[in-house]
């Protein structure tokens, strides 16, 4: 059994830097990670024998620096372990899937570094097999060293789509097209401001060159409006300037930005009286990407160490984080979607909004047609929106925004995603049997009876 004082959750860049920083100042730290490898989504490690198309040189160097510093501290790593939450007694609950059991840990401090999730707007058919997030295609490429096969369409909004297109091209299968809601070429002044961020600009230009070299059609100011099964393929309708274009493809990668993966997480508790003291680090605090995540991991570690040692609180966020924030703002302006119609406003009533519970736009519309507009919580409890296994990670924002559109003439405050998700743990589905076994170690169940609840 470990006698760690601090548990870091998530072995991406922010978690690894936080663990390294805390270990260097003398704390006994352990890190838990849901996968079997370190690095997080951004530095997903290739499997043996898959080296082609590895990460770009710059990002590879960053990863090596993070990993070497981490390895030097000899920090215990528990892979295949997911974080469930912090219970009423202040114990940290984790599910160690290698051992097949839930454990409750008493800790002085917890660093939550569980990263970001992608935003994906609903379009008819977005939930079909063969459709994934663009980031999902990207991590798969990093893992396998292979591009997704067949005709692939990338669609949505933002610079990540270009990065994925470039990576696919390098691995030998450029996407059939790239559908982008914005038009970066329409904001030249903003583009010029990127000169202040040379590293970012250089990376963007390299990706763009790959896109042009591979002659990937880049449809700007365009949207995927629907996806249908067509035999073994997917029929996609794309709307651009009022015209419809159809394409038949095998795979689709959707991406409309990223957001904090802060669903169901315990709140930060920043007083030495709290046990454990909980701080968030990296993209789950503010989704700014890998470079800021490193700086934020160090900042969070410093903050936790200061609280635990009773010294004055560190001063705010550091310069690297502010700089990335400025760069992200610029990119958001550069890629601002063309036109002012919300992609949610044009969804058909059949469009699935909450996939886990199979709830549609039409279901939400009928809930919202009650005399008194419902609150987010009512829509969740009465309509089962955001109730499912993903805990609203992919539907809470969309449901809240669509409710705001449907209740546009209401005087009430528009609902927020948090109103739908609430602060629930476990962060992941886990069976009552496994939790009970953890609470009463003497009645522990044999491994094969410890199981997650069915998602359905």
């Amino acid at each position: 059994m470990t006698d760690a004082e601090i548990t870091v959750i998530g072995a991406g860049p922010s978690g690894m830097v936080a663990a390294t920083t805390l270990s260097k100042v003398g704390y006994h730290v352990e890190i838990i990670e849901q996968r079997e490898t370190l690095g997080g989504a951004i530095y997903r490690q290739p499997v043996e024998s898959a080296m082609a198309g590895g990460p770009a040189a710059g990002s590879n160097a960053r990863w090596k620096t993070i990993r070497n510093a981490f390895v030097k501290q000899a920090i215990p790593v528990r892979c295949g372990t997911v974080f469930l939450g912090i219970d009423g007694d202040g114990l940290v609950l984790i599910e160690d899937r290698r051992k097949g059991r839930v454990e409750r840990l008493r800790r002085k401090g917890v660093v939550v570094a569980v990263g970001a999730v992608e935003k994906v707007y609903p379009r008819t058919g977005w939930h079909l097999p063969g459709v994934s997030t663009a980031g999902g295609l990207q991590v798969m490429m990093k893992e396998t060293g292979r591009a997704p096969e067949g005709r692939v369409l990338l669609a949505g909004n933002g610079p990540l789509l270009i990065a994925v297109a470039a990576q696919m091209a390098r691995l030998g299968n450029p996407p059939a097209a790239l559908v982008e809601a914005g038009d970066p070429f329409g904001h030249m002044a903003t583009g010029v401001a990127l000169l202040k961020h040379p590293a970012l600009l250089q990376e963007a230009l390299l990706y763009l060159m790959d896109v042009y070299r591979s002659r990937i059609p880049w449809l700007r100011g365009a949207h995927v409006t629907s996806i249908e099964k067509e035999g073994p393929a997917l029929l996609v309708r794309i709307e651009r300037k009022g015209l419809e274009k159809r394409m038949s493809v095998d795979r689709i990668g959707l991406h409309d930005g990223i957001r904090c993966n802060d669903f169901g997480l315990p709140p930060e508790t920043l007083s030495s009286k709290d046990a454990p003291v909980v701080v968030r680090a990296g993209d789950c605090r503010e989704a700014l990407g890998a470079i800021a995540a490193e700086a934020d991991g160090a900042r969070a570690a410093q903050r936790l160490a200061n609280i635990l040692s009773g010294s004055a609180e560190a001063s705010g966020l550091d310069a690297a984080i502010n700089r990335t924030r400025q760069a992200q703002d610029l990119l958001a302006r550069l890629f601002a979607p063309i036109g002012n119609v919300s992609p949610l406003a044009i969804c058909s009533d059949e469009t699935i909004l909450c996939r886990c519970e199979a709830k549609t736009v039409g279901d939400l519309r009928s809930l919202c047609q009650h005399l008194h507009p419902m609150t987010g919580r009512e829509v969740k409890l009465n309509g089962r929106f955001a109730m499912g296994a993903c805990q609203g990670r992919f539907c809470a924002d969309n449901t809240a925004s669509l409710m705001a559109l449907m209740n546009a003439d209401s005087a009430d405050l528009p609902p927020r995603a948090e109103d739908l998700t609430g602060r629930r743990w476990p962060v992941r589905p886990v069976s009552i049997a496994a939790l009970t076994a953890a609470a009463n170690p003497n009645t522990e169940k044999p491994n094969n009876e410890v199981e997650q609840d069915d998602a359905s």
Partner: protein
Amino acid sequence: MSGQTFVWKGKDVPFRSGESIAAALEAAGVFSFGTDTFGQDFRYFCGIGACQGCLVRVDGLLREACLTVARPGMRVGSPEDGHD
């Protein structure tokens, strides 16, 4: 190391050391992992353990295909297949 397989619904699926079940199934051309009670497919979506849409049953336990590393001889099926 090559030549390793796990069992997907009675058929052998090859994988490379360290590869996730999702990666091996993709390479084998399997995109639907089964259907939920609403008739929707379980499938690979987010790749990071967040959407819970890629659940499969691994030796009787529900697991995310995108997080779970393939091991030789594992028995993998749809969530609705139940314990085998």
